[in-house]
């Protein structure tokens, strides 16, 4: 499982690097593209098997965040009808989002930014 995680996670990052070098996309655009791509691949049922196969290699890259959003939205609809389309995605990813907001905020309070040289 660790080898698979390494290979798939590494490959997803290598593709990102190629996109940055070849297309001069900014990192922000790469991240938006990866999340949206993950949502689409998740909805099409392509990304699920990759998660089964590679574990964190597929869930840790931002495409995995998109996959969780799509999976949550589809499961939400199965449980709550159309309301679930609005509830499921954020519910499934709540841990990561809340942690990013919380720890990001803490960083700004605790740490001083290094002065750029």
């Amino acid at each position: 499982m660790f080898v698979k995680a390494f290979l798939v996670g590494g490959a997803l990052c290598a593709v990102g690097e190629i996109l940055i070098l070849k297309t001069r996309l900014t990192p922000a655009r790469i991240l938006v593209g990866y999340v949206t791509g993950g949502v689409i691949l998740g909805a099409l049922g392509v990304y699920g098997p990759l998660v089964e196969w590679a574990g964190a290699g597929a869930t840790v890259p931002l495409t995995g965040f998109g996959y969780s959003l799509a999976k949550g939205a589809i499961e939400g609809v199965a449980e709550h009808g159309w309301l679930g389309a609005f509830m499921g995605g954020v519910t499934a990813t709540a841990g990561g989002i809340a942690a990013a907001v919380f720890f990001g905020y803490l960083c700004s309070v605790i740490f001083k930014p290094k002065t750029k040289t």
Partner: protein
Amino acid sequence: MNGWKTSRQRDIEQRYSAMVERFTPNHAMAMNVTRAFLWGGAICVMGEAVSELGKAYLGLEAADASAFTAIVMVFLGAFLTGLGQYDRIGKHAGAGSIVPITGFANSIASAAMEFRREGLVLGVGARMFIVAGPVLVYGIGSSVVVGLLAWVVGLIR
């Protein structure tokens, strides 16, 4: 030998430097892509280890284990950003440090720290989403579209 170059030597030198020019960018690109692969893979292996530890020692089930992994990886990304280490890694790793969820945490933490001087509300509170905001807008937005499509498909069936 005596400091004078023959035309043949000059020709070889010229062809050599042309060759260097032709291959250097490709070589640099291959190096960058390899580094992104290695760092990205290593970060995902770390995520896999966190997930396994959560299952083994905290008795987490699959869904909870993935939330646990996301939270721990986000913490690590933010913490290393706070210490100034994540940006150092980023210089070597390129996309290998941007694409994993630790990079998402880094984008929030580094923006929050950078704009601290503009105040806690409109500095930290607003600017921390300068990169993460678009990610959430397009990620959550497209997931709502997917959910609504799934709902419509469910109605038709």
